[in-house]
């Protein structure tokens, strides 16, 4: 019975191709718009968020601008922070621009970064050669450095940089490793390598502090053991910082990527919902189109309905026939819309330059919407057809 109805519905759709197509067009456009908007928003924000995530949601960054009485955080402040519950480690960061030289090659716009071993433990950048900096390098008197592939390329032509010495702002350093900053999708790493023309050299943080001429650290990353407890830990960190700066306002700020991500997530969901809501207006319009077509069809086929009833079709069977026809129309529109929407998304993400990510949620929504539209807007015409009195239906011409 269901199969028969499907065949009959298909026959009717095929026999008025143009009309069926135009009727389904509203659904096609509505579903395509829903799919495309959601997919594009999710692809774009998804990529942005994965970049942010690669920075680590398990840490916060303290920027200690300090005040006239105290310029930043000193080593004892760092020790206090490190001793807090749920703090896995503290990584101060010193950043200066300086020079690097070797055998007549001089680069004078090199980004020199001071880092400790905690930074390297959390860092996902691949090492092309050699090793990362270790805890044993952090005594302040060890002159070793990790360079990036740009420095390696410009200073060591056809030479292995490992164990070679370079002059960093006049001080001789041994190269122990080469980082491949292009290997990472890390936003910061990307920004760092592009912000300095010549490349980046990482040296132990105490050495960098001495080079910078400052006495305190102004940027410190605090790593958490358990991100679920980060609210409490952030409060603890604030307590330590308040005490360190003698409760002077505006001495420091904390950037918390986790909460930023949560906010972005909420915003992207809201944006998707808003856009889908707007696009679904097209679906409602499409549904009205289907209802209109079905009502016309019921009127045109009144005699056929009468005949079917005379041959023994009961009201439910007639109703099912017309609902299936409405469903077939809207579902066909929905399927075309899904394909079209995905096509638009692929092109749009290519143009924007983000990775295309298929959104099964959006596809499910599109399919669900078109089924719902078919059922809702097919119901009234089908009910009308099923409640026609057989004799009245047969008598019409």
């Amino acid at each position, binding site marked *: 019975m269901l199969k*028969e109805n499907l065949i009959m519905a298909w026959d009717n759709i095929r026999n008025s191709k143009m009309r069926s197509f135009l009727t389904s067009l509203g659904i096609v456009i509505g579903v395509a718009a829903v799919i495309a908007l959601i997919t594009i928003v999710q692809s774009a924000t998804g990529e942005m968020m994965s970049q942010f995530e690669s920075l680590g949601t398990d840490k916060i960054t303290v920027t200690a601008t300090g005040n006239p009485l105290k310029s930043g955080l000193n080593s004892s402040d760092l020790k206090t922070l490190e001793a807090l519950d749920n703090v896995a480690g503290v990584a101060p960061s010193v950043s200066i621009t300086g020079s690097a030289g070797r055998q007549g090659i001089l680069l004078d716009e090199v980004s020199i970064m001071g880092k400790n071993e905690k930074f390297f433990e959390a860092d996902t950048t691949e090492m092309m050669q050699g090793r990362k900096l270790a805890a044993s390098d952090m005594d302040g008197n060890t002159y070793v450095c990790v360079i990036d592939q740009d420095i390696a390329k410009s200073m060591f032509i056809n030479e292995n940089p490992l164990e070679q010495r370079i002059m960093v702002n006049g001080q001789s350093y041994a190269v122990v490793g080469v980082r491949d900053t292009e290997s990472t999708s890390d936003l910061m790493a990307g920004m760092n390598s592009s912000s300095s023309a010549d490349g980046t050299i990482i040296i132990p943080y105490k050495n960098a502090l001495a080079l910078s001429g400052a006495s305190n650290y102004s940027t410190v990353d605090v790593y958490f053991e358990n991100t679920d407890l980060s609210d409490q830990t952030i409060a603890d960190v604030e307590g330590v910082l308040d005490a360190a700066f003698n409760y002077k306002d505006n001495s420091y700020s904390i950037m918390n990527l986790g909460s930023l991500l949560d906010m972005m997530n909420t915003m992207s969901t809201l944006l998707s919902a808003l856009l889908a809501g707007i696009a679904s207006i097209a679906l409602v319009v499409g549904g009205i189109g289907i209802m209109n077509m079905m009502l016309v069809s019921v009127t045109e086929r009144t005699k*056929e309905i009468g*005949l079917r*009833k005379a041959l023994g079709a009961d009201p439910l069977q007639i109703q099912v026939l017309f609902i299936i026809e409405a469903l077939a129309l809207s579902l066909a529109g929905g399927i075309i819309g899904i394909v079209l929407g995905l096509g638009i998304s692929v092109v749009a993400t290519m143009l924007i330059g983000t990775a295309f990510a298929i959104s099964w949620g959006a596809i499910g929504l599109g399919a669900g919407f078109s089924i719902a539209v078919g059922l809702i807007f097919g119901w009234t015409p089908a009910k009308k057809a099923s409640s026609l009195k057989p*004799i009245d239906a*047969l008598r019409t011409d």
Partner: protein
Amino acid sequence: MSEILSMKQIIKEYQMGDETSTVLKGINLNVNAGEFLAILGPSGSGKSTLMNIIGCLDTPTSGEYILSGREIANQDEKALAHIRRKEIGFIFQSFYLLSRQTALKNVELPLVYSGSDKKIRREMAEDLLKKVGLEEKTNHLPRQLSGGQQQRVAIARALINNPTILLADEPTGALDQKTGHQVMELFHQLNSEGRTIIMITHDVNLAKQAKRVVQILDGNLMEEVV
């Protein structure tokens, strides 16, 4: 002979604005199994109205109608559909075939609504098309058939549910004399096999071919002695 149909004081009125026109003015009719009955009457006399009531497509304004032991006034739409499916095989003056379906599919249609499976449907439809002499035309569309052939498809369709009554409203009205005669031949054959037939016509010569004739005049039914 067992009675399959009984009508008592059937009245049918149509409300036309303020006026009520009474088309059937108290019809009494009994039909037994195996009869070949002709209902004869001039155009506009209420023949089709009566046939639609007999076929449960329409309901009388008042009166009692019992078909195969069931009081029709007490049935809901679903039950009426079931009765039409099981008891009645309709044959209309203008055939009423689905124009986009083949002869075979048209004949199968009543079985779709009684839920028979595809294979049985097909076999039965083929058998019946053979019986009405159209075994070569199973895959033709109605417009590829002559009027007489279309009416024979309609007769095959009317027979497929093995109905208690074959109900024909001016079955030869749209046919020429020769093909009309072929259809009548088929009716005689079916009746001789035991099928109950009620045929409506305005043509005295056609009516005379039935075993029993009743005449409807001005909304009243009279037994005609042939």
